[in-house]
C-alpha cells in the first residue's frame, strides 16, 4: 500500500441506506447512524456493546477511517452484486428492489477527507448523499423514498442506468486508484 497522497475531487461510490420512516437515511448495518443532508463526518463504531456500537480499543492516530479498524463511510466501486447463495453478504441485494419492502434504498455517496481505497470500494471520513434510486416496479416504500430524496435535496432515479451514467464513479479514477 502506498503512503497517503492527495486526490482532488470527491470520490463517488454506491451504497445502501435504510429508510428511517421519517424522511431520513440511516446506515443500515451499524449504528444506527443517521445521515444529514450535506456533509456527514464518520466516527468509529467498531465494537458492538450492550448499549450500542462503540469505538475500537485500537488507537486511531489519523482519525477515521483507520486501516486496522472497520470505521468510516463505506461505498462500492460498482453496483452491489446479486448473490442468492447461502454465503451471500448482507449487502448483496438486487438493486432493482431498492426502495422495496425491506426498507433499504440504493444510491450514490460522495466521499472525501481521509479515505482508504480498496479493490472493491472505499471508506472515508466524510460522506454526502448525492443521488438515490428506487426500483421502477417497487411500490413498498415509494412515498417514503420520495420524501427522503426531497428532504436531502438529491435526485431520485427510477432508471438505474441513468443514475449510474450521471452519478456513478468515474471508471478511470477508480482504475488509477486501485492499479
Amino acid at each position, binding site marked *: 500500500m502506498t503512503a497517503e497522497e492527495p486526490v482532488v*475531487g470527491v470520490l463517488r461510490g454506491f451504497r445502501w441506506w435504510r429508510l428511517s420512516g421519517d424522511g431520513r437515511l440511516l446506515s443500515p448495518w451499524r449504528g444506527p447512524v443517521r445521515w444529514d443532508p450535506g456533509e456527514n463526518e464518520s466516527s468509529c463504531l467498531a465494537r458492538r456493546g450492550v448499549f450500542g456500537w462503540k469505538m475500537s480499543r485500537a488507537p486511531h492516530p489519523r482519525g477515521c477511517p483507520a486501516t486496522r479498524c472497520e470505521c468510516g463511510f463505506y461505498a462500492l466501486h460498482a453496483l452491489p452484486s446479486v448473490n442468492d447463495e447461502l454465503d451471500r453478504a448482507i449487502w448483496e441485494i438486487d438493486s432493482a428492489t431498492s426502495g422495496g419492502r425491506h426498507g433499504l434504498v440504493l444510491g450514490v455517496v460522495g466521499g472525501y477527507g*481521509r479515505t482508504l481505497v480498496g479493490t472493491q470500494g472505499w471508506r472515508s471520513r466524510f460522506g454526502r448523499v448525492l443521488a438515490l434510486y428506487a426500483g421502477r416496479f417497487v*411500490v413498498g416504500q*415509494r412515498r417514503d423514498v420520495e420524501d427522503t430524496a426531497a428532504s436531502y435535496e438529491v435526485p431520485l432515479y427510477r432508471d438505474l442506468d441513468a443514475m449510474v451514467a*450521471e452519478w456513478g464513479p468515474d471508471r478511470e479514477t477508480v482504475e488509477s486508484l486501485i492499479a
Partner: protein
Amino acid sequence: MDIGRIVREVEVLPDADPEPLPVAEPSVEPQSEPATLPAGR
C-alpha cells in the same frame, strides 16, 4: 460492506470550483407489480 483489500490511503480534497452537478430526469412511476424481495430478509 466489504471494500476488498486496501491498496491506497488518500486525502480526498473536494474541488473548490466543481463542475455543475447533473440535473436529474423527472422520475416516472409506472403502475406495476412490486419487485421480489431478496431471500432471507
